[in-house]
């Protein structure tokens, strides 16, 4: 940590010295000429840092559950139904939908919306030039079947559910984060994985779904507030302490709902848990590690069926007494607690099947992801008076969500195939006092993850194949097996320290000049607040949906001078190598397709040509830099 500023400075310095598309000294050299000005005879070349991914050992093929070919006609039918509902609404208001978008806008938007990154130049050009009449629906399927789908979906939910690797030093839940990604890759239905989280038991590495509760260990009431907010679009947080001032929820309602978790435990101090007594080892250097391992192993979700929630001592309403056991009760809809069924199972039943808001909320979330704004806004604060901007459409979407059995991928497939999605974005600021009428999607800035992943696309070939090294040896080193004695735990603590070191060394292999280059979904969760992703607004994961798309000075500094933007101007990067390989006449097109997924206009081409004629090799770097610093790059049209 102490070395970081110095290291940063060194990294910046060393980066620039070989930044081969930026050198002003070698005016006449072109990327096309292999023996460019970068090499200076007589000078010893420093060992060249390699971009991660050049070592095949670091690459991993990710398998994705593809969409079904035989449901396409039904998808298109549903899309048409949505279009007719929107069209009716617009007609009723005397409004016209925005014009349809050209292929170049579509390809960039749909790549960003489904896979979280801009397309490569090749992908964009191939699509635009294709004469296939069904190319849009084919591209949508292709993208839904690519690893980027899971990565982008994960980033969304990680922001919503505040996913972290370690809530504190005593809880390790990275397996939970990996499990979520796996669910998106295998397209596990939404209600299934939510139910698994609500009912999971065990340690995080035995049953990763327990991460949802371990994330908020010791804060079950806050966790519950977040659960209703995230999955039911309903805020009951106020009722935690008193009757909700603006909604119908009373404090009693809150406690009755919380009573489903009256037996929930996130720490296990029971006798018989295989944790040795450490008293005899308290002089050992490793005692802190040993104690930590013990605490990590005590972090476990289980139910104490004999334990019940009681009303708090300061409970002030007449309808119950302080200290009285709380009976379970739901906010709306119904629940069927079968005799003997666990309370959490009953809650999960109610959450996922016993009410209308579950389907509505997730349908509205997915709609907002595609269109930039929900049919219901805010999407997590509904009440009985809430009306959707287009009520019939919201009803239809919720019904579709149920018909598709919470297959989020299929649901999104429908949305992306609508005509209304494939229309121009609304650029005008929205009226915050009125509902948006959905004449098209709305203009959005890229999320932090989309910016980062797009820069990665310009730098590393097939970045999806670079995933976090798996943590199986780390898990083996923390897991205390039955029968472990104080002596063997001491040995395990020593090994654990070694494993941690080895993991750190492995992580360095994914670094390029001090920075791990993997997709945002494959980075540590969360990242330190000085990281590029955080500067661009990635959430600190402390509160629900804490990400932001606002511009700031540090973002621009990172784009101007940051090493992350310079890496793509160096030899070995995707855009550099593409440029080297391209015919001189094609180079300007290639740069525009790489950054903006479109061909340059004649004026733009003339400007770029002039610049490259004047500055030579550096001219290419200047054009790339200039395009990266356009608003067109940063915004999703």
């Amino acid at each position: 940590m102490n070395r970081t500023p110095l290291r940063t400075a060194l990294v910046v310095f060393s980066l620039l010295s070989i930044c081969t598309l930026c050198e002003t000294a070698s005016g006449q050299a072109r990327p096309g000429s292999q023996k460019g000005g970068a090499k200076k005879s007589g000078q010893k070349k420093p060992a060249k840092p390699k971009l991660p991914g050049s070592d095949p050992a670091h690459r991993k093929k990710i398998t994705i559950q593809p969409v079904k070919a035989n449901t396409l006609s039904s998808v298109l039918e549903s899309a048409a139904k949505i279009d007719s509902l929107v069209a009716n609404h617009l007609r009723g208001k005397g409004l016209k939908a925005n014009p349809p978008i050209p292929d170049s806008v579509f390809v960039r938007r749909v790549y960003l919306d489904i896979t979280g990154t801009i397309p490569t130049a090749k992908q964009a050009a191939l699509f635009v030039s294709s004469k296939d009449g069904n190319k849009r629906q084919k591209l949508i399927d292709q993208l839904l079947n690519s690893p980027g789908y899971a990565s982008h979906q994960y980033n969304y939910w990680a922001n919503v559910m505040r996913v972290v690797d370690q809530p504190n030093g005593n809880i390790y839940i990275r397996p939970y984060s990996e499990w979520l990604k796996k669910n998106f890759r295998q397209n596990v239905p939404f209600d299934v994985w939510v139910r698994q989280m609500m009912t999971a038991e065990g340690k995080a590495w035995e049953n990763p779904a327990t991460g949802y509760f371990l994330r908020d260990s010791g804060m079950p009431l806050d966790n519950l507030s977040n659960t209703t907010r995230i999955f039911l679009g309903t805020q009951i947080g106020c009722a935690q302490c008193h009757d909700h001032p603006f909604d119908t929820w009373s404090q009693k309602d809150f406690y009755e709902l919380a009573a489903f978790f009256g037996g929930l435990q996130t720490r296990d101090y029971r006798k018989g848990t295989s944790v040795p007594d450490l008293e005899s080892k308290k002089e050992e250097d490793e005692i802190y590690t040993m104690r930590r391992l013990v605490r990590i192993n005590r972090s476990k979700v289980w139910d104490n069926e004999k334990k019940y929630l009681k009303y708090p001592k300061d409970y002030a309403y007449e309808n119950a007494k302080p200290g009285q056991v709380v009976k379970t009760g739901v906010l709306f809809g119904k629940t069927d607690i079968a005799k003997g069924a666990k309370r959490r199972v009953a809650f999960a039943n109610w959450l996922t099947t016993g009410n209308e808001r579950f389907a509505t909320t997730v349908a509205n979330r997915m709609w907002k992801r595609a269109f930039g704004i929900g049919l219901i806004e805010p999407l997590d604060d509904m009440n009985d008076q809430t009306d959707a901007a287009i009520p019939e459409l919201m009803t239809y979407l919720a019904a579709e969500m149920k018909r598709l059995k919470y297959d989020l991928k299929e649901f999104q497939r429908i949305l992306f195939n609508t005509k209304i999605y494939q229309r121009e974005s609304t650029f005008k600021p929205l009226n915050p006092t009125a509902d948006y009428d959905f004449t098209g999607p709305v203009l959005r800035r890229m999320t932090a993850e989309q910016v980062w992943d797009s820069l990665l696309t310009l730098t590393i070939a097939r970045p999806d194949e670079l995933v976090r090294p798996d943590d199986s040896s780390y898990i083996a080193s923390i897991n205390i097996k039955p029968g472990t004695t104080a002596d063997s735990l001491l040995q395990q603590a020593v090994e654990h320290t070694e494993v941690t070191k080895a993991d750190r060394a492995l992580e360095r292999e994914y670094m390029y000049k001090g920075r791990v280059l993997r997709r945002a979904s494959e980075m540590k969760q969360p990242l330190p607040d000085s990281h590029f992703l955080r500067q661009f607004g990635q959430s600190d994961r402390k509160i629900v949906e804490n990400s932001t798309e606002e511009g700031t000075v540090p973002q621009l500094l990172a784009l101007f001078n940051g090493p992350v933007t310079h890496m793509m101007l160096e030899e070995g990067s995707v855009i550099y190598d593409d440029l080297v390989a391209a015919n001189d006449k094609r180079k300007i097109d290639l740069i525009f397709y790489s950054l903006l997924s479109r061909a340059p206009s004649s004026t733009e081409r003339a400007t770029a040509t002039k610049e490259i004629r004047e500055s030579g090799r550096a001219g290419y770097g200047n054009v790339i830099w200039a395009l990266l610093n356009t608003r067109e790059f940063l915004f999703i049209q």
Partner: protein
Amino acid sequence: MSEEITRRRMMESAAKACFGVSILPFGNLLAAHQQARESKAKAVIYLFMTGAMSQIDTFDPKPESDVQGDTDVIQTKIPGVQFGSSLKGLASIADQLAVVRSMYTETGVHENGQYMMKTNYKKIATTAHPGIGPWMQKLNPSPPRDIPPSVSIGQSIGPGYLGANFAPLPIGDPKLGLQNTKSPGYLSEKNFRKRMSLSRTFDKKFRTKSRESIMVNGYDDIYRDTLRLLKSEDLKAFDLKLENEKVRKAYGETRFGNGCLLARRLVQKGVRFVEVNFGGWDMHNYLFRDLPEKAEEFDKATTSLIKDLASRNMLDDVMVVVGTEFGRKPNVNQNYGRDHHPSCYSCMLAGGGIRVGQVYGETDEDSANVEDNEVSVQDFNATIASALGLPLEKEIVSPDGRPFTIANGGEPVKELLL
């Protein structure tokens, strides 16, 4: 240093004449300024304890009650006033502080509580409200400087409906300061300008299409600010390495200590609002194990900050605020922690514009409820705004036509003001 301060004051009074104190009759300008100099703060360093700092274990101990748990108390410099024993430094300068023990708020949800403290408004999804820094700049614009008028250290809230022009500059890790400020060696000023001009040419079509978008246009202000800052001497203010080692040590060289030190350096350069966020107070578990270390880090940095400002003759001009989103329950829970408690909590004020050497307000014997002189979030912020000489009644109309005031109807606590 003192020369610089004088120069700044001159600029400031000139700027006031040009920009904004139109509420004053012309003839009284100088007199008003004299008066303002004596009783009003010019800058704020706002130390925000995210996660909800426990009042009982810091500023509002209850040694007579069972609720006190394992936290000892310490006598402060004010007779009869005690703090939690981790706050040794602050106890020794209690005569320089005004502690408010009678805060209360409406919510026990972190994000809503923080939002309320920082903006004075309830968090709603249709409008983003600005924080105090952007409000200061709106109501009393500072003369254009290279350095932005407000800075947030650690994640905070943006400028809301006031727009990007009022955005606080966010700093992640204070030790790293502002990153990526060095231009690559090969990139001359001329070349940089050329790149910017190329960028503008390539962006023309999109900019025409998006000319009505506040979001897109907001970037113009940020580009302008960034370019100006890059050329400025003020950049050095962000570099803690330039600070005397002794001073760095005094602040503790912790993340929060570095934040406080950076805040002082920035205020010296004319930044008017610096927020330092200090997380980790959400102690539902093992509070008595974890709180001392956190509170000592807080105590060391905050005490050093106040003393440092005093020794540089800046304490009359700079207000130091300690805030948090709500309090913690008197009853210790089964995990040896304390849960959320919005009905009462403590905040602290010091420095410019503040009547120090006092404890304001009182809670009951368990610190469960406010007993006397209750202070709402809006009152607290109105007090800060008042100490800065900002007009509490002045309405700002947001782009969607809704009127807002800085204090949202709060009444300043006169007893806390000079």
